[in-house]
């Protein structure tokens, strides 16, 4: 993608190249329309040339079991029994949420390994990735995965390569029910609002949009039947935030710690300048005494306190 539209860059304390303004985009995933066909998973793997290992069935429809460096999106299936005894099959397409305030980017120690574009896409640049996994530590949604082949972090790119040339993400293009739509973030909110009105009229009183404020909003949003309890959807966080531990770890404490280390060095230097070194008064390595020469310094008066008499009597 172009490098003139980067509005945030990992491990960078100056402004990135962000002259080009773009409209914010968003992918809207309507869980109420999803039939769990996994076409989006296939499209993702096709477009991005990803071929994950064939795994094992663990007794659920989730396939594969979890996101991986080669599975950037995954349908998660939840069987939810309502209070009235009815069963609901909640299916959520999991993947990177493209947070406005990305925890991965905040935690990353490598300059430029994670960037956020003006259109809202959070992208990993594996060329700069060092494989430390701090992005996983920082992410409130448990999304990034480290590849066991090249030890780089991977996740959904929101098809940044397609979006940059005016195409929609591969998963959006393939979705047969229109459960995944893509456009400007404002348009997607309008679309979601219409869907929510429709759902409420059908008895889903708690239907709503998942665009959590705790991470500044996201560029992947969900329409949920139960927006009051997002955790029903395979543990989607109710109120995702960057963990305060990560905030403390990566926030103001780091520059302050650097300052303290620099101050300690300076304090030592000025202690030396003002107070000076501690030397032992006696010469540590006295010159060998040449006994053949009897040298007398007339200015030196030897006084032995163990012998009687005043100092005058002891002069050589």
């Amino acid at each position, binding site marked *: 993608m172009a490098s003139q539209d980067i509005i945030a860059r990992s*491990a*960078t*304390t100056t402004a990135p190249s962000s002259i080009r303004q773009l409209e914010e985009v968003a992918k809207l995933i309507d869980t109420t329309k999803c039939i769990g066909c996994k076409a989006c998973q296939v499209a993702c793997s096709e477009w991005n040339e990803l071929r994950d290992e064939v795994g094992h069935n663990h007794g659920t429809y989730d396939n594969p079991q979890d996101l991986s460096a080669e599975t950037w999106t995954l349908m998660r299936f939840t069987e939810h029994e309502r209070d009235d005894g009815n069963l609901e099959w909640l299916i959520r397409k999991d993947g990177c949420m493209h947070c406005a305030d990305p925890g991965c980017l905040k935690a990353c*120690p*490598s*300059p430029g390994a994670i960037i956020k574009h003006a259109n809202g896409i959070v992208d990993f640049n594996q060329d*700069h990735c*060092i*494989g*430390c*996994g*701090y992005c*996983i*530590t920082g992410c409130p949604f*448990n999304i990034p995965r*480290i590849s066991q082949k090249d*030890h780089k972090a991977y996740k959904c790119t929101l098809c940044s390569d397609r979006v940059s040339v005016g195409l929609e993400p591969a998963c959006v293009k393939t979705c047969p029910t229109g459960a995944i739509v893509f456009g400007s973030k404002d348009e997607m909110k309008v679309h979601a609002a219409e869907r929510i009105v429709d759902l409420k009229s059908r008895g889903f009183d708690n239907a709503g949009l998942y665009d959590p404020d705790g991470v500044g909003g996201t560029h992947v949003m969900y329409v949920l039947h139960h927006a009051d309890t997002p955790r029903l959807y395979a543990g989607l966080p109710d109120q995702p935030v960057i*963990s305060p*531990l*990560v905030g*403390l*770890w990566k926030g103001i*404490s*780091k*520059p302050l*710690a*650097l300052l*303290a*280390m620099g101050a*300690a*060095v300076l304090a*030592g230097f000025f*202690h*030396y300048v003002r*107070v*000076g*070194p*501690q*030397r*032992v*008064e*006696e010469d*540590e*390595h*006295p010159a060998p005494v040449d006994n053949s020469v009897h040298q007398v310094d007339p200015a030196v008066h030897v006084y032995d306190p163990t012998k009687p008499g005043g100092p005058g009597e002891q002069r050589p």
Partner: protein
Amino acid sequence: MNQREHKPILRYNANERTNHWIVAILFFMAGLSGLALFHPALFWLSHLFGGGPWTRILHPFLGVAMFVFFLGLVVRFWRANFITANDRLWLRRIDRVMLNKEEGVPPIGKYNAGQKLLFWTLLLCMLVLLLSGVVIWRAYFSHFFDIGAIRLASLAHAFAGFVLILSIIVHIYAGIWIKGSVGAMLHGWVSRAWARKHHELWYREVTGDKPPPVPGRKEG
């Protein structure tokens, strides 16, 4: 001054010195590679280790090696590092010590209270660094721990590293400030005068010297 007065005292034997400097070298390598990941302003330090990925690969091994060799120092020196009543007095008189004024500063053994506190601080930091470092060692161990533990360990690791580096800055400066102490760790020997001035009780212990007579009082 007789001939015996000029005979230096061995403060650290060859094994102790070697162990110390192995820890020191590993500290610098683990410390610099850790600082590279500590703050973006220091990321350039990763070039010393062959780039970011190599820094990430090497840092934990360097840290574990540092810990193992530091244990060698602990085994050698922990007995000499118990805090005594004299040490508390010494700490209360730290202002005089800092100004190179000896009056009223109690005589001390092999280590003064500052050195002892440093010893225990380093041991504590090393333990925290080791334990938290294992938790955030993504390649081998992180999958055994949940995300909350990893986040806490990341914070603890950075904090312990910070305290360790700060402590070593003090340690290095003390070596520069107190002339003769670097020699003790480089070639092992200190002068009698140095030992008497800085570690009087230890001096008496190794030489068998009695304390100097107090004027006006009989020895008995």
